[in-house]
């Protein structure tokens, strides 16, 4: 219930006792300020971690091969392992329900020429699913599709910066470029959030590359996106199983990491998740410690204030104030001060975070430090509750002192 007279009493009391009001407010404001800064900076750190993996899909896996480092079944070490369509199809058939996207990848480095402009570029020969795994954004035209693969078409999708190098501001789509001596049709232009290097490349169908450059069925890597319905642990288990199966199939020692390995984003995610979890746990611990210190601070001040006002309460009771009205007055005053001070601290903290946000990103790996609305809401609840507790306990005690004792107090 809104009681204007009660508020008048409270504002008068705050106004006439500015120093103690400011002091008790300061404690809370400072605690909340520290809490906000701490939370903001850690959430910034967390944003950076998430951003670092933004280039590739979160569920991506990579099968990579090198040379064997262990003898196995009479085969010597140093044997070169080569992935081919056979393994690609094996993975595709064997784990169909665990895979969302799949693509092969062959790396080439060729000169791309258009009229008088020519440059060396990384060329990736891939399947259509590669678009989703690499989070390629199509700006113009289209990405590679299955019929390009089937027809072994000489089509190419070029990066934004490739287009800029060769065509400047002119139209590139539909033009033909010379790739290592063969003519390719540009069917699309893409951009990528992974940075400039990811935009200075071009994609061609894997089948085309296999036909033109060696006429074999070799591939460099197999990239997968595991089914997002899998839990992190299930995805990690899937990665391990695939690794074992492929090693067995290719006659590699089961523990030979340097011959064939599966790089699984699920493991990285789990690691990051654990790390961030630990970090948040520490922050919550330190943050609540700060808040508790603030609450204890204001409780101490309230105890002192109420002692100071004991005589006033005695007078009020002699004049007919009920104990509840005195407790209510003190609690309301305490909640008001904590809430206002808390929001000052919160606003100041948020303001400081926006001020220093940009410089932190460059120097300290902290991106967009900010506090979420849930944290703000939580902090508000804590503030009001702490104001309640800080005011209620000592006020209750003071209100129960007999007026005759309270009047004698000085």
């Amino acid at each position, binding site marked *: 219930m809104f009681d*204007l*007279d009660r508020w*008048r*009493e409270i504002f*008068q*009391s705050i106004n*006439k*006792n500015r120093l103690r009001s400011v002091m008790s407010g300061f404690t809370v404001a400072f605690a909340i300020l520290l809490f906000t800064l701490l939370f903001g900076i850690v959430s910034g750190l967390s944003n950076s971690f998430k951003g670092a993996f933004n280039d590739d899909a979160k569920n991506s896996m990579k099968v990579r091969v090198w040379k064997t480092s262990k003898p196995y079944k009479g085969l010597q070490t140093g044997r070169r392992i080569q992935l081919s369509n056979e393994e690609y199809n094996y993975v595709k058939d064997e784990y169909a329900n665990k895979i969302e996207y799949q693509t092969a990848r062959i790396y080439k480095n060729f000169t791309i020429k258009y009229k008088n402009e020519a440059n060396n570029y990384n060329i990736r020969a891939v399947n259509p699913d590669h678009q989703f795994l690499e989070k390629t954004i199509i700006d113009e035209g289209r990405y590679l599709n299955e019929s390009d693969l089937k027809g072994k078409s000489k089509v190419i999708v070029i990066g934004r910066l490739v287009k800029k190098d060769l065509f400047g501001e002119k139209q590139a789509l539909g033009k033909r470029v010379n790739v290592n001596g063969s003519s390719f049709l540009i069917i699309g232009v893409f951009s990528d959030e992974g940075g400039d290097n990811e935009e200075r490349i071009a994609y061609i169908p894997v089948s085309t590359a296999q036909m033109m450059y060696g006429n074999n069925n070799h591939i460099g890597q197999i990239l997968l996106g595991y089914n997002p319905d899998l839990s992190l642990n299930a995805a990690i288990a899937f990665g391990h199983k695939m690794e074992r199966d492929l090693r067995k199939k290719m006659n590699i020692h089961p523990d030979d990491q340097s011959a064939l390995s599966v790089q699984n984003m699920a493991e990285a995610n789990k690691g990051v998740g654990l790390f961030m979890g630990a970090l948040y746990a520490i922050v919550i611990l330190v943050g609540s410690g700060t808040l508790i210190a603030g609450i204890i601070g204001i409780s101490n001040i309230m105890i002192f204030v109420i002692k100071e006002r004991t*005589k*006033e309460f*005695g*007078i*009020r*009771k*002699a*004049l*007919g*104030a*009920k*104990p*509840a*009205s005195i407790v209510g007055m003190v609690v309301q005053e305490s909640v008001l001060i904590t809430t206002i001070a808390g929001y000052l601290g919160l606003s100041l903290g948020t303001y400081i975070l926006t001020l220093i946000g940009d410089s932190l990103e460059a120097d300290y790996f902290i991106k967009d430090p900010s506090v979420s609305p849930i944290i703000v809401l939580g902090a508000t609840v804590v503030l009001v509750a702490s104001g309640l507790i800080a005011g209620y306990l000592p006020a209750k005690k003071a*209100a*129960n002192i*007999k*007026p*005759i004792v309270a*009047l004698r107090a000085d």
Partner: protein
Amino acid sequence: MIKIEKLHKSYPIGKEALHVLKGIDLHIKEGEFVSIMGSSGSGKSTLLNIVGLLDEHDKGDYFLNGQLIKNLNEKKAAILRNKFLGFVFQSFNLISYKTALENVALPLYYKGMKRKERLIVAMDYLDKVGLKDWANHLPNELSGGQKQRVAIARALVTKPKVVLADEPTGALDSTTSDAVMDLLKDINNEGMTVFVITHEEEIAAQTSRIVRLKDGVIISDELTKAAKAI
């Protein structure tokens, strides 16, 4: 108005108990102007505190306005104080950060009166004690006599049945004391019961009945010359 029978009160001091009031019988009728006299330690302040519901008695009966006072909780006591009693203290007990007018209006706030209304009523009573022009001054801007007059206005503002004054002139010089006593007389003449505690003969002489207390018992209870003259 006030009826006390075989009233006892003792305070625990360590393991011992200090027996302050040892069976007081006192009957004060409506409209009386009574003073309680006694040296310090005689129990007179304790008696006033019990009558004023600021403290509780141990044994005996106390009737205020015909109502037996027993097992009062703080809330009930607060309501009764607000309704029946007005207090005037030796040390004035004004709230330092409130103006004279706001101090006088405070009991009306606890009575639940609206702000506008209670400020009008409070101003009325300040006028009665001759302090209308000082309404917006804080207590520390007033002299002792003025403070006590504010306190009297505050005690009267709820139109109580009984005004309890604990050494109302104790902190004042003789001229101001007389002014305060004149004010209390006026109140009494309007029909209000006034109950004064003092250790000064001259003050007691201005009331109409003197009750003398010594070591927790009443040693005499008689009408004054002033009363007999009427």
